[in-house]
């Protein structure tokens, strides 16, 4: 087993002025499950492909364990890959598919057999070993593709959106299966996805990327609660964080955030930080997670300085929770996540209390989270 280290790694394609990946620095620990996440074109797959050896590294160093592998061929890097398009070998049965890589590496027959059967048992596909890929369902094929990677017992697993060809139900199921499997195998895994739910549920650590740059590398909890900038704050979380542009003012010793429909008092600790950094009187962006808007009377009574009013344009009841799309707050819709048993109706005017201890404040120009900087 081994960790992976990227030192000042760049990827620049010939003929392009801009680097696809810029100054990528990351130390991935042995046995860590790291997720690269970001919108399409952010450089996450390119980074994975550089680690795999499928793309040349334009600048910088890549280590697998203690070895620099920039010039090592993919097959000699001791990695196993699972791609989005998990093509199986169609003329071979499941057993042969899983054994192929080992056969090529001249493993002994009994060792091949042991590894294939063990992986098949782990993935619960023992009964499929004699079947050809054509006779398998999507989920079964995906498990065979995983099996093909597992039997190699590599130092590092690389997975590029391996679940995106599956339907929603199967995806959720396989997500849990892969997480469990990786914990059991205790192998370093680098996993690429554009799906933030996948990232949050699977990763020990998540790297959020945009335009070829690392925006933030942190644990799921850290990313969710302490995003370093507007992009990370908006990317992680569904429904996304609400952003409202407004002004900070100081009245009677209290720092207030004012915008259309908003006039709330910033808690003392945060207010002092804003004063110290010279933000009073300036325009800035407040970020509020949907679950930090509360319609329960007890909250409203307890937080008289952070109560706002709005009308419900649309409500979506998912049973256990309800999303309210609110009008009259800032320029865009604001979404609140409330209890599914709330008897709220579309068109109704309601009062909500903002949990001001959980707000985020972003510099309008740099888009950095002022409270985290």
């Amino acid at each position, binding site marked *: 087993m081994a960790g992976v280290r990227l030192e000042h790694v760049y990827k620049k394609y010939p003929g392009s002025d801009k680097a696809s990946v810029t100054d990528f620095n990351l130390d991935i620990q042995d046995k860590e499950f790291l997720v690269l996440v970001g919108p399409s074109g952010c450089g996450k797959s390119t980074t994975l492909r550089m680690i795999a*050896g499928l793309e040349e590294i334009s600048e910088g160093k890549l280590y697998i364990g203690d070895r620099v592998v920039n010039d090592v061929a993919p097959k000699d890097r001791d990695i196993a890959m699972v791609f989005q398009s998990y093509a199986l070998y169609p*003329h071979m049965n499941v057993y042969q598919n899983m054994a192929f890589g080992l056969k090529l590496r001249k493993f002994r027959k009994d060792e091949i057999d042991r590894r294939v059967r063990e992986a098949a048992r782990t993935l619960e596909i023992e009964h499929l070993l004699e079947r050809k890929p054509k006779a398998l369902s999507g989920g079964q094929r995906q498990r065979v593709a995983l099996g093909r990677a597992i039997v190699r017992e590599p130092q590092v697993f690389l997975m590029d959106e391996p679940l995106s060809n599956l339907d929603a139900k199967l995806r959720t199921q396989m997500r849990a299966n892969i997480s469990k499997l990786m914990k059991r195998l205790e192998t370093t895994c680098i996993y690429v996805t554009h799906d933030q739910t996948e990232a949050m549920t699977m990763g020990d650590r998540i790297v959020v990327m945009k335009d070829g740059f690392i925006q933030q590398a942190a644990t799921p909890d850290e990313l969710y609660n302490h995003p370093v900038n507007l992009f990370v704050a908006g990317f992680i979380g569904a429904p996304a964080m609400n952003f409202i542009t407004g002004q900070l003012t100081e009245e009677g010793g209290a720092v207030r955030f004012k915008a259309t429909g908003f006039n709330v008092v910033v808690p003392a600790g945060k207010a002092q930080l804003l004063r110290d950094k010279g933000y009073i009187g300036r325009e800035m962006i407040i970020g509020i997670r949907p679950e930090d808007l509360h319609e329960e009377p007890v909250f409203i009574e307890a937080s008289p300085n952070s109560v706002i009013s709005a009308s419900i344009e649309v409500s979506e009841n998912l049973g256990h929770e309800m999303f309210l799309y609110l009008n009259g707050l800032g320029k865009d819709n604001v979404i609140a996540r409330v209890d599914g048993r709330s008897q709220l109706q579309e068109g109704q005017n309601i009062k909500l209390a903002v949990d001001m201890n959980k707000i985020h404040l972003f510099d309008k120009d740099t888009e950095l989270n002022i409270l985290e900087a």
Partner: protein
Amino acid sequence: MQQLMNAPVELDTMTKAQWIESGGAKLPEAGDQLQLNGRFLLVTKADNHQLQILRTQAELTQLEKELLGWLAKQGSMMKPGSASASELERQARRLGEWLQQSIDAGEWRAEIPERFELHHRLFDGMIPFLLMSEQAENREPSYGELEKVLRSYLSDDMLLIPLREREWLILGTDRLLAEVETNEGDMIERGETKEALVSLATGLHQMITEEWGGDCHVAVGEPIIPTESLAYAVATLRETVYLGRKFHVGMHVHMPWLVHLERLLSGIPEPVRSRFMDEMSGRQDLFTDPETVSTLDAFFAMDCNVSETAKRLFIHRNTLLYRLDKLKQEAGLDVRSFNDAILVRLLMLLYKVTKRK
């Protein structure tokens, strides 16, 4: 052999059961022989259930029979082609050079001359694959290494022919098509051939990328008799990879039957293309939105069938209809109508090319 024996010689097959019934050994292998109804039968190859038989009416002495048996045994132990690796490479390179010359001279229909050593291996139905390596490594991969890997993947009777730098023609037996089927012995339907070819090519791409080294492009054609149409097949596959890389960036497996429109568009003079794009000015902005592009790609892939597209995208039918209506409102093009669908398809293809300029 007919000349040597001065009698007709036939090649035939029979099952092991038939061989045993005729008085042959219970575990037949190459070199075994028997006399049946005045004919001499010799096993030249023994597979699981099937035997390849050489049959002749010639009257042979015991010594001649033993000699033939020994030859058959030796022959069965040799790899197809019976040449050493370096000799095979030399023969393959010679053929590759001839193919290149024929294509350069525009002689796409040229038949392979008999003077080539590999000529005798090119009479059976074979599937042509074209492999273009984009390996990050600078060194040219060795013929021997690649041939070994491909033999493991396809079968021992495959042929690897080097063409240009980092470009190879791979010929696999068309029996592979039957092996894709779920059950042994199932006959492949005509309509399923292309599906099977795609899966073989996709598997080949995956195998090369994972097991041999680095990124590559693979094109696959329908089975051919190589002696008759190999130059044509290579030229077509080469063009297919070119069009695939130009119009479908990110795709690595290409099929000639899927790039007809691309071939036509590629042949249109640049000014005509520009004029079309100018006339559609503003509409191509739609294709910067990944959701619109993936929706339209799926819609066209599913033959403009709304229900099937929604299923493929894992979205509700109404969500798809909403997206298509949005496109109609913004671009004035309704992809559910035949003429607009053509325009959008053309726009999407041309946008992919012009965008990169």
